[in-house]
C-alpha cells in the first residue's frame, strides 16, 4: 500500500515538474497570440509598393541619412541590446545567430530615411526578444547607428509567417524596420514585428 502511494506521488510529482517546465513556453505562446496583428503583410507586392499605411517615401531633396544599426532600445520593454552583423549562408541556409545579441541582416538596407526595410532578428530568449510579444501599438524603438544617428520607429503591428517567406527582403516602399523572432510551440513560425520610421534624432 505504501509502495503504491509512493508510485502515485511520483506520478503527481512528475506532472507538476513537467507543467512547470512547460510554463514559460505556454506563457510565450499566449503572449504571441496577444500581439496586435496586421490584417495583411506589408511585404506583399501591392502593399510594398503602395505602402498605404506607412509614411510615403521621403522626397529626394531631403538630406539622405543612413547608418548601420549598432544598438536597439525599446524603452517600454526595457530592451537595450547591441546589434551585430548577421549574414546568410546560402549553402547551409543558416543565419549568423547569437544567444544574447540582435543581428542586422546586412543584405537588407541600413536604417535610412528614404526607402526599404531594415531587418533585425534575434532569439526568442529572455536575453534577447522574449518580451517582444508584449509590445504595444505605437511603442517606440530606437535604433542607434554606427555614425551616431538615432532612428526612432513606432510599432504598427505584427504577423506570423512561415520560414520560407522571403517577401520581407523584397520590400522597397517607405523606410521601415522589421524585427523578427520565432513563435509557435515548437518555434516553427517566424513572427515579424513591423515599425514605421517616425524621426531621426
Amino acid at each position, binding site marked *: 500500500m505504501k509502495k503504491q502511494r509512493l508510485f502515485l506521488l511520483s506520478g503527481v510529482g512528475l506532472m507538476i515538474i513537467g507543467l512547470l517546465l512547460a510554463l514559460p*513556453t505556454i506563457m510565450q505562446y499566449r503572449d504571441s497570440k496577444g500581439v496586435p496583428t496586421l490584417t495583411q503583410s506589408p511585404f506583399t507586392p501591392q502593399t510594398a509598393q503602395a505602402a498605404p499605411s506607412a509614411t510615403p517615401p521621403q522626397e529626394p531633396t531631403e538630406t539622405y541619412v543612413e547608418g548601420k544599426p549598432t544598438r536597439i532600445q525599446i524603452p517600454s520593454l526595457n530592451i537595450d541590446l547591441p546589434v551585430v552583423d548577421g549574414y546568410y549562408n546560402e549553402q547551409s541556409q543558416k543565419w549568423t545567430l547569437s544567444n544574447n545579441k540582435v543581428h542586422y541582416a546586412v543584405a537588407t538596407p541600413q536604417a535610412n530615411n528614404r526607402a526599404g526595410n531594415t531587418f533585425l532578428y534575434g532569439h526568442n530568449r529572455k536575453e534577447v526578444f522574449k518580451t517582444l510579444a508584449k509590445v504595444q501599438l505605437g511603442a517606440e524603438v530606437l535604433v542607434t547607428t554606427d555614425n551616431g544617428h538615432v532612428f526612432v520607429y513606432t510599432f504598427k503591428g505584427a504577423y506570423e509567417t512561415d520560414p520560407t517567406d522571403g517577401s520581407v527582403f523584397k520590400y522597397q516602399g517607405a523606410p521601415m524596420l522589421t524585427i523578427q523572432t520565432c513563435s509557435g510551440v515548437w518555434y516553427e513560425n517566424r513572427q515579424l514585428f513591423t515599425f514605421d520610421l517616425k524621426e531621426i534624432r
Partner: protein
Amino acid sequence: MYQGVLGAAITVPAAVVLPNTGDNTLLTVTAIVTVAVGAAIIVTSVARTVVKKAHKA
C-alpha cells in the same frame, strides 16, 4: 544613394529562408515527456487500485 538602398535589397538570394530564432525546443520536449510519464503513472496507479477493489468485492 537611393540606388544604393535598392541595390542592397537585391543582393538577398532568391531562395532565402528566415532566421531560425527559436528558443530551446529540448525544454518543451522534456516538459511534454515528463507530463506524459507522470500521467501514465497516475493512470496506472488508479487502474491498479480499481482492479484491487474489484477483486476484494
